[in-house]
């Protein structure tokens, strides 16, 4: 028996109303809104947030492998799973891999994780799918795409949901793509690609699966059905004769958008959040072929301390002021002022030496007097004892805002920069604040830590932690 032990999700704080895109560019407004990553988020930072959500109450050292799935890896060469593993504090002998390129990357990683557990090479595999795809300005893709992440702990004991059956086929087909030089998703003419690509493959995959397994599709409690957009999913639902009201997992096109490799995984998390014992959940995912997974729910998810899941993140949001800001955040529109600033510097040896606190957010705790320091200190500032400390991870801690500014002079992609002093329990730290609404910031407001991209000094993404007002208080 193999299946899902835990799951988590992440949806960025900011949403862009589709009507705001139409306001700026003209044309039809489209319905609803889409979730958009802040300027300091990418698929790695969102993956970390979803992984932390999934691992609430679970010791990271029990994770034997980490699979990271995304079509928007910040690196073409250099593993992104390694970054996530270091942030989470996984064991050094945890097996890590990136699953990329395909919109099926998320389900491919889940399937591969299940295989690893079945084979006995790992007991617990963490799968994280995260995507932040760009549609060119004014394209339907720009309207459709959203940003988000999902995470699962795959194992063979204490299963929330058991994997009952699976199916896959591969289909070489040029429908949508990005070559090594493309920033934006490109596509062939849409009637051809949806007819011969999505529709054909989903129907073939699900059709073969139910036939092979002798399953009556109408007896499945929930179908997680990936689709390019809200119109195309209707066609597939109709062809499969599914009851749209009760049987189809809400794809959140109007709230989040199509989150690429994370899309089907996020819907699966949402389905598990609502599932009852004994429910059957079927996942059908499309991209260069089709994956089908059938899960049997062993127990309802229930409340897990600290876990937010799709529901928690969905309800905690703020609207991006306008479309132009979105263009700026995605660097589609760059301001002359930004180009005239001297480039931000970075030093790889420093980031390597300080990885324990830069990525791991570890403070030092003096073993002599018990005081905590961030960044870690070799000599205790109170008792001056030398090298007598242990690391204490701060990433899950909640705290309060001690003092702050609104700095219009500081280098910032979203001026004013908010620089703060935060108290996280018994340790005080300086940090930048993100996902904030300046007018709402005040002393003593509850805050938490979030992993973000700071800049691209020296040509690579430089990650570290910021504080943000806790998402719970902003629903």
């Amino acid at each position, binding site marked *: 028996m193999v299946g899902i032990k835990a799951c988590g999700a992440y949806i960025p704080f900011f949403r862009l109303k589709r009507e705001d895109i139409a306001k700026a560019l003209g044309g039809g407004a489209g319905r609803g809104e889409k979730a958009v990553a802040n300027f300091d988020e990418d698929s790695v930072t969102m993956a970390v947030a979803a992984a932390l959500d999934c691992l609430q109450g679970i010791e990271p050292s029990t994770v034997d492998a980490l699979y990271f799935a995304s079509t928007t890896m910040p690196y073409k060469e250099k593993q992104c799973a390694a970054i996530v593993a270091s942030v989470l504090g996984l064991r050094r002998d945890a097996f890590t891999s990136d699953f990329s390129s395909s919109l099926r990357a998320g389900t491919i990683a889940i399937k591969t994780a299940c295989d690893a557990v079945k084979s006995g090479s790992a007991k617990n595999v963490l799968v994280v799918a995260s995507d932040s795809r760009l549609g060119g300005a004014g394209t339907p893709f720009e309207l459709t795409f959203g940003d988000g992440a999902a995470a699962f702990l795959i194992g063979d004991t204490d299963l929330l949901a058991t994997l009952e059956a699976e199916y896959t086929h591969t289909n070489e087909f040029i429908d949508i793509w990005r070559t090594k030089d493309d920033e934006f998703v490109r596509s062939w003419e849409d009637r051809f690609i949806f007819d011969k690509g999505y529709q054909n493959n989903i129907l073939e995959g699900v059709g073969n699966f139910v036939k092979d397994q002798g399953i009556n599709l109408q007896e499945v409690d929930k179908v997680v059905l990936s689709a390019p957009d809200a119109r195309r999913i209707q066609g597939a639902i109709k062809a499969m004769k599914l009851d749209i009201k009760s049987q189809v997992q809400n794809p959140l096109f109007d709230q989040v958008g199509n989150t690429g490799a994370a899309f089907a995984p996020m819907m699966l998390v949402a389905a598990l959040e609502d599932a009852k014992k004994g429910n059957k959940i079927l996942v059908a995912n499309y991209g260069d072929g089709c994956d089908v997974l059938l899960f049997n729910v062993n127990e309802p998810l229930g409340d897990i301390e600290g876990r937010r899941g799709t529901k928690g993140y969905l309800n905690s949001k703020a609207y991006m002021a306008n479309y132009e800001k979105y263009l700026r955040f995605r660097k589609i529109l760059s301001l002359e002022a930004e180009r005239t600033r*001297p480039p*931000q*510097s*970075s*030093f790889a040896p*420093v*980031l390597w030496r*300080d990885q324990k606190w*830069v990525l791991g957010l570890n403070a030092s705790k003096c073993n002599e007097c018990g*005081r*905590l*320091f*961030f*960044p870690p*200190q070799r000599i205790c*500032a109170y008792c001056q004892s030398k090298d007598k400390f242990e690391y204490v991870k701060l990433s899950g801690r909640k705290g309060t805002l*001690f*003092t*702050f*500014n*609104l*700095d*219009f*002079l*500081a*280098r*910032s992609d979203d001026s*004013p*920069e908010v*620089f*703060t*002093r935060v*108290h996280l329990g*018994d*340790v*005080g730290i*300086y*940090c*930048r604040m993100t996902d904030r609404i300046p007018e709402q910031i005040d*002393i003593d407001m509850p805050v938490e830590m979030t992993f973000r991209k*700071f*800049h691209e*000094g*020296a040509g690579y993404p*430089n*990650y*570290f932690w910021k504080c943000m007002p806790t998402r719970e208080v902003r629903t």
Partner: protein
Amino acid sequence: MNLEAIRGKVAVIGTGCSKFGENWDKSASDMIIDAVFEALEDAGMELKDIEAAWLGTTTTFFTALPLAEILKLKHIPISRVENACATAMDALRNAMYSVAAGVFDRVLVVGVEKLKDMGISGLPEYWSHPVYGTGATAPGRYALCARRYFHNNNIDPDKGKEILAKIAVKNHYNGSLAPKAFFRNRIDVERVLKAPLIAWPLGLFDCCGNADGAAATIICRKDMAKSFRDDYVQIMGNATVMGPGLGKEDMDHAFDDFPETAAAAKMAYEQAGITNPRKDLSLVCLHDCFTIAELLEYEGLGLSPKGQSQEDVEAGSFELDGELPINTDGGLKAFGHPVGATGLRQCYEISRQLQGKADLPERQLKDPKIGLSLTQGGHPGWLIPNVTIFAQP
């Protein structure tokens, strides 16, 4: 340790100061020559009389050699000192001990900074941690203090901004009476409050400007001072104090006070034998890089009780005609802050005031006896302060 040992051992016998500001037409060398020759003339000396020198600068020169090169000083000991905004006074501190030890009799101390050639409005960016070191600016760091000080003392931020504005108005007024100042315009509270924000709660007029400038002083042993002039100025104490920069890691760091500055003041007062600074001091030149810095320095120097400095601002205690005039020349607000020169600019102002020779008579205080200089580098939680005390003979 015998802190009193330095009290009154060393005397200032000559001071000089270049015009401060955007000195597009002057190089660092030009400003040094202006300041040094004013100090030489003041001391009644020539270049060849100088036996040793100290050069204070943060970024303008590396090594001490440029001072010899500019002044054509031949084969004398010169050291370069860098200690952030306390650079000049720390150079003076090192020079003082060489004089007090009896090794050199006529020592030149020079502070200089040339910032405006660099084409940036802020300070140059130094090495900092690639991620942890991002996001903070000098006004931003002081703004953290302002916000917390207001909170701890139940001051509404809007009211707090008004208190700070009065400090800016005072210093601009004093600067209007100082011919060598960068900004000589008078302002009012309304203009300060309407100015663009730099780092809330601090606005444009809460921040000093960057500037070019140089200042110089010539010192000798006090027992020889009378051979140069009757109205020499004695140095009663000079303390630079470092803390471990606990602000970044100390949970208890309050962000409403300057503990390092209080420690430097305590040491300097002990050197000088000052027990009641509010009463004993006749004038103070302190480090108003930001108005909130000046407000908290009133408390750090023991001039106002903790949390109550705003009452002294409201009462006008520290205005030019107040009980204890502070920043009589307009301070950093009026002069700008050429980092390595600022301390010796304060030495120039205090010395001239004690000698009754303020450059405009409207600014001359009535028979001042003791003056204090505070320069304060770094930022709250990570301060590098120097307190130096001067007195009439």
